[in-house]
Structures are given as C-alpha cells and as structure tokens.
C-alpha cells in the first residue's frame, strides 16, 4: 500500500514537473529577410540564443525573401493576426509600416526593463524607429554600401597607396581615370547591380547626398527644383560607367556579386552585408585574390553614403495581445540580440547598440574599422510613407534610374519622370 502510494506521488510530481517545464518554455516565432552571407551569421546567433535559453525560450526562425515579397507577406499576415512574434524590419520603412497598420507600438517601459532605451543607441538611429513620437522598431545595426576592391588588380594598376589602401579614387574624373586604368586587366573595371532597385537606389542616393540634394522637401515636394540638376548629375555619373563599358549593363544583383568574386571585376559597389560572402570565400581559399573594402569614394562636394538600419519590430497582428510571458520572451530576444551584436558586426554591419559599437573589439575589427567612418556622414532614406525598402521610391528607381544607367532613357528624362510619378502618388 505504502509503496503504491509513494509511486503514485512520484509519478504525480514527475508529471507536474514536466508540465511546468513545458509551460515555462516560450516559443518566439521570428521572421527575417536575411538570405545572404549575413543570414548565415544570423542563423548561428539564433542557435546560440536557443542554447543559452534552453528550456526557457526557443526562437523558431523563418527566412523569407528580401524586399517586396517579405513586406507584402508581413503586411497581409499582420492584418489578419497571423504574423510572427518578432521580425526584422528596415527602419526606412517604419513610416510606411505604421501608416498601413502593420506594426504594433513598442512600449519604452518594456524596453527599459531589458536595458534598452534612447541612451543605448545613436539618437538619429533610435528616432528612425519612431513615428509621431512613438517607438515602433528597435535598431539593430546601421548598414551601408561600400567599395569592395581586388587588391591584386589595384596593385597592378598602381592604385594602392603606401598603406595598402586604394588611393586616387575621389572625384568623378579621378574615378573614371581609375576605371580606365583597371579596364585592360578585367572584364569589367567595376561591377554593380544595374537592373531593378537596390544598388541603383543606394548609389544614386549616395552621389545625390554628396551634393546635398534634397529628395523630399519639407513641403512634401519630391526633388525640389534646385535638387534636380544634382540628381541628374548623379545619374549621369552612374550611366557613364555603363556607357564606357566599365560596368556591366542590365545586370542583376547576384550576377554583379559573381563578377567580383570570380575575379572578373576589379571593383564592386554593394552593401556591407556581402562582407561575409568575401570572408567565407577567402577562408575556404575559393576567392583567388586578396580583397578589401573602403567607404564609397567622394565623387562630388563632400563624403556622404546612403545608409539604412535593420531593426526589430512587432507586428500589430490585428490587435491581438501577446501573453505577458510571450512578451517578456520577445523583449529578451531583442535585448540579447543587441547585446551580442558584435557577432552581427562580423556580417559586415555596424552595430546599433552603442556599448558594442564603442567596444575595443569592434574598433579593431576589419574591414569594418576601415569603412565605419561612413556612419558619420551617412544619409538615410527620406522619412515618408512612399520611401523605404520595397516602397514606391524603390519601384521608381527600377522604372527610371536603372534604365537611365543603361542608356535606355536620358538622365534628365529619368529624373523628371520619377519626380512626376512620385508626386502623383503622394498627392
């Protein structure tokens, strides 16, 4: 009798223990759009998180296609309450996301509870996650475009300085001269995406920013009159690379990366998120040349580079409330990711979390340390519901700027039509 009683007690406690373990385990559904070399880094970060939080929180990650497919899915699934618990989000798209009701407000108290707030991020970065003074996204990084270079080819052309870094690339004419020097030994002196949105926008916005161009005036005018010549000269510069045969025409993103990694191109303009692609290829010995990356040269008046940020956002999910346990888990995920963002810097990005950015480890990390100066002169996308990743501005780039780069449209026509098109959608 006693024995049976004991056994019964034991099994009850066991069951109770098991149950409580099951209850304490929170699953956080996570969506991201990180499919490139940085996606691999993110997956290992998620794995590390899951091991450190074994039995408490598990991230169930899904990677979706970057850009329009991702944001269309977020938009629709959030509206019907089928979105994830947390997702990566471009801060440039916060205005559009808030306007279309896809994002839930993030309370600063909840953030403060996990040690995040205005004081742990650069102020411009922090505010980029706001709309009407309310927080809708937590910054995770700052990312930009850089100029990748093939050291061997640059050395041959005599374009490496004493310090082993490229020299003499500043100024549109000097850059053109450098392309001419590089062209004989390469299929293309410069590879970059010349079809669709993405790179064409990022390069355009950088060159435009170097002339202090205004894309969206305070009165809601796209490309005010005095900025039009600046936009035209930015496009003309980009078109001259393709026209001279230095850059490939009508080339898509993947193709432009392949041209550089296969050694066919001496220079490559692309986002910092391709740093891991180069690092990994070099580590495996598959790259076949020495590579480096520097900030985009100054073509016009002063340095400036397009930049955007990845952040974390919580979908509104049709107003469905999270349980307090789930909410705590989500904020733990956001905080942990930021506090461990040194590993994310390994993916080429500049961490948003100030303590990581100021750490000695980050300051000596290469090639980030070489190009992280760009953060000081970065120009962010205009704050508008028409701007940001997968927005009407991006579509307009694919429709007007990319064709102008390929000589299918004159730069002046491209800018005029882009202005008319965007203005039309804004009014």
């Amino acid at each position, binding site marked *: 009798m006693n024995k049976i009683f004991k056994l019964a007690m034991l099994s009850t406690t066991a069951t109770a223990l098991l149950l409580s373990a099951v209850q304490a385990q929170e699953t956080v559904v996570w969506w991201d759009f990180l499919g490139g070399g940085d996606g691999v880094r993110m997956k290992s970060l998620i794995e590390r998180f899951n091991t450190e939080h074994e039995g408490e929180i598990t991230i169930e990650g899904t990677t979706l296609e970057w850009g*329009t497919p991702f*944001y*269309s899915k977020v*938009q*629709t699934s959030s*509206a*019907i309450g089928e979105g994830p618990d947390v997702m990566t989000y471009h801060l440039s798209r916060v205005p559009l996301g808030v306007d*279309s*009701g896809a994002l839930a407000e993030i309370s600063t108290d909840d953030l403060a509870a996990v040690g995040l707030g205005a004081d742990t991020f650069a102020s411009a970065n922090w505010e980029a996650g706001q709309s009407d003074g309310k927080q809708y996204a937590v910054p995770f990084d700052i990312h930009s475009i850089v100029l990748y270079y093939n050291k061997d080819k640059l050395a041959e052309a005599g374009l490496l300085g004493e310090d082993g870094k490229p020299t003499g690339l500043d100024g549109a004419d000097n850059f053109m001269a450098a392309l001419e020097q590089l062209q004989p030994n390469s299929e293309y002196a410069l590879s970059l995406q010349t*079809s*669709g949105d993405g790179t064409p926008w990022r390069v355009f916005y950088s060159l435009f920013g170097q002339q202090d161009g205004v894309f969206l005036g305070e009165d809601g005018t796209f490309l005010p009159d005095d900025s039009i010549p600046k936009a035209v000269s930015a496009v003309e510069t980009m078109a001259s690379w393709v026209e001279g045969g230095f850059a490939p*025409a*009508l080339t*898509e*993103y993947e*193709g432009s990366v392949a041209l550089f990694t296969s050694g066919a191109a001496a220079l490559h303009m692309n986002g910092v998120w391709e740093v891991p692609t180069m690092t990994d290829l070099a580590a495996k010995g598959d790259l076949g040349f020495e590579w480096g990356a520097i900030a985009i040269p100054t073509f016009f008046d002063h340095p400036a580079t397009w930049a955007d940020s990845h952040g974390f956002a919580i979908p509104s999910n049709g107003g469905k409330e999270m349980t307090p346990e789930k909410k705590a888990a989500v904020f733990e995920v956001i905080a942990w990711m930021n506090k461990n963002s040194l590993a994310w810097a390994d993916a080429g990005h500049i961490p948003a979390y100030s303590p990581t950015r100021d750490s000695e480890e980050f300051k000596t990390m290469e090639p980030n340390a070489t190009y992280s100066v760009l953060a000081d002169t970065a120009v962010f996308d205009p704050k508008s519901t028409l701007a940001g990743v*997968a927005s*009407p501005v991006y*579509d307009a780039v*694919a*429709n007007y700027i*990319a*064709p102008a780069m390929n000589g*299918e449209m004159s730069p002046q026509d491209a800018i005029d039509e882009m202005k008319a098109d965007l203005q*039309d959608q804004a009014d």
Partner: protein
Amino acid sequence: MLRNHRQEMVVALLFVLPFVLIYGVLFLWPTFQMVYLSFTDAPLIGPGEWIGIENYVEMFDDRRFWTSVRNTAYFVVLTVIPNTLIGLVIAMMVSRLKGWQQSLILAMFFLPYILPVTVVYRIWNWMFNVQFGIMQYPLTWIFGKATPVFRTQWMFMPAVAFVTVWWTCGFNILLFLSGLRSISTDIYEAAALDNASRWTIFRRITWPLIWPVTALVLTIQLILQLKIFDQVYLFVQGGRPDPSMVMVQYIYSQAFQKNEGGYAAAISVALFVIVIVFSILQFQVLRGRGQK
C-alpha cells in the same frame, strides 16, 4: 397531383441547394463584396468609408491603369490566335500518326502543360540567360550580340507570349485532336473519291466541322490570357515593372503592396466587365459563323 408536384419541387430544391449555397457563398457573395469595396477607400483588409465613384474617377485618370490595359490587350493579341492556330496545326499533324507513335508525340507536346509556372519561368530564364543561355546562339546570330530578352523592353511581351504558347498549347492540341477524331472518316473517303485536293478537304470539311472546337478554344484562351499575371510577374523581377504591367499585376500591386483595397477592387471590376463583355461578344460572333 398538385401536392405531388410540390413535393417534387421540394426534393429538387434540396438537391440543388448544396450547389446554390456553395455558388452563392464562394462566388456571388465575394463578387458583390468586390463591387461594394470598389466604392470605398478600404485598405487591403478591413472595411473602409463609402466614397462613391471616386475610385473610378481616379482610375480613368490613372496613367498606369491605361498602361496595364494596353499591355493586357497586347498580350491577348500575341497569344490567343497564335496559340489556337499552332494547336490546330500540331493536332492535325499528330492525328496523322497512329498507335503508340501518336501517344508518344502527344505526350511530348502535352508535357509542358503539366509544369507549374515557376518551373516554366526557371527553364526559360535559363534558356534566355545572357551569359550561358542556349537561346543566345540564335539571338547573337540575329542581333549580332548577346541580348537580355526579358530586360529589353520591346522584346519582353513577345518573349513572354512565346513562353506562354509553348507552355499551354498542349491542352489546345488535346481539344483539337478529340475534335478531329469526331469527324467521320466516311466524309473524308467521299471527298477522296471526288478527287478533292488536300487544301479543299481542309477548307471544306475539316475547318467547318472543327469550328465549334475552335470557338471553344478561342474563348477559353481569351478569358485565360486576359487574366495574365504569373508569367509577367515572374519574368519582370529585377527589371522595370511599370512598362510591362498587366491588369492583374496592377491589382496585386495596389492591393498587396500599396494597401489600397478599394482602388484594387475598382480595377478588378473593370477587368471583370472586360472579361464578360469580350467573352460574350466573341462567343456570339464565333457561334454565328459556325452556323452559317
């Protein structure tokens, strides 16, 4: 007797009820909702404010809407008649074969039809690839240099139409083949005895007798091609979306990308009307010709 009749009515109603219910819930109600939505400023999901005919006024003034209408019409012209004629020609050739040879050749022509559109897109995107696509050999021979077909504006629609014909003509061949088989061999024998030439046989016998099938194929094709979306959407990825925008694609972009549910519904109504008008018109015209 009267009571019996009524009872029969009840039974009949009971039998058609499932269909009427499903038809009402899955077709009539959504259609009504779509028309209603087109008079509101609703977002993608959820209700909106009644704004009268504002969406329609905007639509008639919308440059992109007209581009999409023009492109859809262009695509229909490029596919409907060619697809039907090619289907008929191939069916006539296949029908001359016998036994397993016929089955084998027919299966080969039908094979593309069973592929999903994404696979078709992958195949032809590779075939036309500027760097390694096999189609670049003839293209280089014609144009003197490698040509990015899906990135060259004037080639885009014809190329997508070509791929569409390749993909879908298998089904038309099947329809025509069954039509050809139903023509009695006696008629052909009689014609042969009268020393009729092959062309005369085709013009006087095959063509009139196959006409009902032709009319059917043309109508199916018309409705299908007016709703073109997937191929254009896939092939334009990474290029210039606007100049080759078709109507369903524009509806998608307004609803899912721009969150303009009401406006997208207005364009859907326009497409709905176009499809109905054209298919009724076409079917009437074609039926009339067949009866003469």
